[in-house]
């Protein structure tokens, strides 16, 4: 009786072993890096030039037109030609040579940026390549301060970033940061030289909130917080720049504030939705932060009068508002009909003032 399970197991096992062996041999094979546009000649290991061989690219046979004897000729290589190349002896199909071809470019000058968003703790530098090389690159960063070499600790996330702590403050000597990028096809570098105070740029303010002010149709109350990355706002205070505009207009209005983390806009257009942003800067040095996340707010508006008239009709109990609000049908323009609680209050205060004066002078 044939048991299907063990034989199926055997087949699977065999397949796994084969794949593993293939992968191992691939990993053991050398990697060959070539520039885009170069002409590549691959020799079939130790085979003679006139030996009969077959080349494959990623498992697919390569046409004989690309061969010069037993050499494989790839002219003007492009990125699509990266892959696994193998050479087999003609009849025996023995693997004689294999290589992993990676087509790429030498690195262009990298882009480097250094910034202190946590002054006076230190600064960070981040970098990237302007164009990809398609092959692995290593980055090396060096920081020199006068005669001293400083260590820039690489960040785990993001990878292309490192940070450094200031040991001294108020330095007259500049910092020189050099970034070198190397790959199998070449290397390149860039240098930044700067003063301690020149790279100070805080993060944008946080938790920006804009609220309407009750009973004030032209006001908006804006408040925000210092960026959390700024370690010592007491000794290193920030100043702020606020900009706002109604959504319907393109022109921004600006206010610069030397202290405090709130401001009341007093010239908003009634009823219009506003967009508001805030930026921060160290009081004395460096540059302005990026703009904060934009917040939207609309100033307070009074409830329209005709709605209360309708409410009056449907209301069963009369609220105090109805006795003060004049329905549109009555004579609003009548000189005698001064409506509203305001007028009543005026009368009372006038009376009190008169009384006070009389007490003083009599």
């Amino acid at each position, binding site marked *: 009786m044939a048991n299907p399970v063990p034989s199926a197991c055997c087949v699977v096992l065999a397949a796994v072993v084969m794949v593993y062996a293939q992968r191992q041999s691939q990993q053991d094979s050398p990697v060959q890096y070539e520039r885009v546009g170069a002409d590549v000649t691959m020799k079939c290991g130790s085979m003679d030039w006139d030996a009969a061989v077959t080349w494959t690219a990623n498992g697919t046979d390569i046409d004989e037109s690309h061969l010069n004897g037993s050499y494989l000729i790839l002219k003007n290589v492009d990125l699509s030609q990266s892959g696994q190349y193998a050479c087999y002896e003609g009849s025996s199909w023995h693997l004689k040579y294999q290589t992993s071809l990676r087509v790429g470019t030498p690195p262009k000058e990298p882009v480097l940026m250094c910034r202190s968003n946590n002054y006076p703790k230190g600064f960070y530098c981040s970098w990237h390549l302007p164009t990809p090389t398609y092959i692995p690159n290593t980055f090396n960063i060096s920081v020199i301060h006068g005669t001293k070499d400083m260590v820039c600790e690489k960040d785990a996330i993001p990878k292309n970033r490192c940070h450094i702590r200031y040991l001294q403050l108020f*330095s007259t000597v500049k910092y*020189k940061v050099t970034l070198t990028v190397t790959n199998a096809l070449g290397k390149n570098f860039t240098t930044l030289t700067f003063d301690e105070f020149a790279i100070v740029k805080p993060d944008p303010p946080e938790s920006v909130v804009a609220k309407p002010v009750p009973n004030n149709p032209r006001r908006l109350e804006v408040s925000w917080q210092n960026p959390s990355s700024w370690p010592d706002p007491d000794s290193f205070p920030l100043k702020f720049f606020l900009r706002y505009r109604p959504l319907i207009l393109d022109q921004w209005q600006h206010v610069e504030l030397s202290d405090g983390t709130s401001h009341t806009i007093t010239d908003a257009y009634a009823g219009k939705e506003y967009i508001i942003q805030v930026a921060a800067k160290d009081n004395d040095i460096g540059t302005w932060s990026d703009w904060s996340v934009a917040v939207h707010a609309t100033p307070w508006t009074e409830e329209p009068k005709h709605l209360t008239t309708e409410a009056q009709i449907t209301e069963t109990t009369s609220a105090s508002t109805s006795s003060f609000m004049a329905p549109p049908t009555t004579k609003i323009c009548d000189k005698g009909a001064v409506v509203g609680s305001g007028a009543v209050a005026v009368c009372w205060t006038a009376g009190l003032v008169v009384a006070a004066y009389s007490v003083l002078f009599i």
Partner: protein
Amino acid sequence: SPTGDSWGIFTFLCAALCNLPALPALNCSEELGAGQSIQQTYDLTRYLEHQLRTLAGTYLNYLGPPFNEPDFNPPRLARAERVPSATVDLDLWRGLTDNARLAANYRAYSRLLCYLRVLDRQVGTAELRHRLAHFCASLQGLVLSIGGVMSSLGYPLPAGPAAPPVPPGAPTAPNDFLKKMDDFWLLKELQTWLWRSAKDFNRLKKKVPPAVVTLRLEARGF
């Protein structure tokens, strides 16, 4: 009449309220004044920093290349150490007492002023001399202002420099290039001190007025 009495009381109350800061002890206004003069000193450092930018630009152009190149970053020579440096260890700076903080500023600017005055005597063009003279006058004002803050807080003024840094007329440097380097570093240190002072006075602004009022009242047994 009662009217006269009422008005009299009212007038007295007004006067009392308006002059309240001066009433309890004469020194009270001094301390509140200290807070104000710290603000004034801070403002002066900002003004001087602004003035220095123009002065330094003109002076470095007068020195010529490479001193007027923006990337010029020479190594610090030993002789340049005579100019007081604003550079300080971060924790040390944080831990400075108010007295030490003010004294460091006072000493630095007094010496920098001396050096600048020497420069003034040697400089070539009339325009530069005029600018330097103006700057020296403002810098003198800053030294006096810092001295004023220290006095109002009861701190002794640091002793002046032991001897003038350079006897007038004597050669300051073995050659012209080294002399120019000295000038370059002098301006650099001055610039650095001015932006350090802004931070020093920020710290003082936050700390001085309330603390000092309490101390003074305690001293008088209030």
